[in-house]
């Protein structure tokens, strides 16, 4: 790992100033994606801005018909939160299955969502629930947030502050993990929300995406039978030593049915 200077601001405004002043600075929270990348020298930031001391980015609360989760909230906190378990159990389930216990004790929702790893879990819940991303500058709808592999709508000096999840009528998540790395090969987050049925697929493609054919079918008939005949197009899906695009396309259908069963 190359060395870097270290800063620990105590407010979002100060963190933004530090990031804006240095185009090669990076924000860090749990560090469980960034530090492995730095060890591989895939990235060479001149400075790291440690967000962990910013109180306004912490905590879980219910506001009206939504759950707002601060960006610094660790996976273990979402998994164990009575507020989340009561309102969106599928989200608590998802958080309880990220990585392993030690990863969940450090990794944060803000880091996972802003990194937008195609094999990460959280982006599927953000897109599947139609969440709203609160940043240091604005609010961004999930549909406009995930732009491509490791790419989001956020700018270099913009910080993810919180994620606002509307509470769905029902929701479910299922994933096929790579048996060695435990990263998602293909996953599905399905929700029946006030604004309609949403089906988000992670792991299978270069970026989380909505399976609109399944959404339309489930809107008319919320049952496994409704999506049984829908084939995911393999074109554009990930193909690597762990599985071909065709295999992942097949997994999308299987995971969607499991997610639907989990949603009930």
């Amino acid at each position, binding site marked *: *790992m*190359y*060395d*870097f*200077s*270290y800063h*620990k601001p105590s407010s979002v405004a100060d963190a933004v100033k530090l990031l804006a002043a240095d185009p090669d600075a990076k924000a*860090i929270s749990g*560090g*469980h994606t960034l*530090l*492995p990348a*730095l*060890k591989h020298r895939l990235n060479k930031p001149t400075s*790291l801005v*440690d967000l*962990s001391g910013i109180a306004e980015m912490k905590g879980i609360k219910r506001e009206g018909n939504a759950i707002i989760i601060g960006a610094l909230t660790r996976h*273990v906190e979402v998994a164990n939160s009575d507020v989340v378990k009561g309102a969106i159990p599928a989200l608590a389930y998802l958080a309880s299955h990220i*990585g*392993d*216990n*030690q*990863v969940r*004790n*450090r990794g944060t929702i803000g880091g996972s969502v802003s990194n937008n790893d195609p094999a990460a879990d959280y982006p599927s819940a953000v897109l599947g629930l139609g969440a709203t991303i609160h940043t240091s500058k604005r609010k961004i709808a999930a549909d406009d947030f995930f732009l491509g592999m490791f790419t989001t709508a956020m700018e270099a000096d913009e910080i993810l502050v919180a994620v606002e999840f509307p509470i769905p009528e029902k929701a479910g998540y299922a994933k096929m993990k790579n048996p060695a*790395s*435990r990263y998602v090969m293909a996953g599905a987050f399905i929700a029946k929300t006030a604004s309609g049925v949403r089906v988000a697929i992670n792991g299978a493609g270069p970026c989380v995406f909505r399976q609109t054919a399944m959404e339309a079918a489930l809107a008319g008939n919320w049952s496994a039978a409704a999506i049984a005949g829908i084939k995911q197009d393999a074109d554009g899906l990930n193909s690597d030593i762990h599985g071909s695009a065709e295999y992942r396309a097949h997994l999308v259908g299987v995971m969607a049915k499991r997610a639907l069963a989990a949603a009930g």
Partner: protein
Amino acid sequence: MPQVTLTVNGKQHTVDVEGRTLLVELLREKLRLTGTHVGCDTSQCGACVVHIDGNSVKSCTTLAVMCQGANVTTIEGLAKPDGTLHPMQEAFREYHALQCGFCTPGMVMSAVDLVAKNPQGLSEKEIREGLEGNLCRCTGYHNIVKAIAAAQDVMHGKRSTVAAAAE
């Protein structure tokens, strides 16, 4: 050079570190606490697990400088000052839960956290799932799981000794 002050096994230390210094490097190279191991160095194998403020973490994927004010416990801090082993250590010995011993410090630290967070008790399946972040390349987990099952009964006060004969 940044400076970090933290408590390790009950003793406070103030150490000069680089921004990039990992917690495991601070423990092993600055404090000479070499019980914590570096296995994969990619946050998968769990040989480097220590507790920060009571939570198990991978110290190879934690910056030392981010541990300002933290309360760290390593494998060296588990036994009592008079040398009496922690029930988890005693159980690993009793059930032959180690062969080469490389993964053992991380296994024990993960297991202590896992059991402490689950006072209702864990099934064999739950123990196996709870060890997802720790890899062992020689014993094959079976005796490790047996040791943790025995230690949890002692940690939760359900029996007084981990001895296999007490089963």
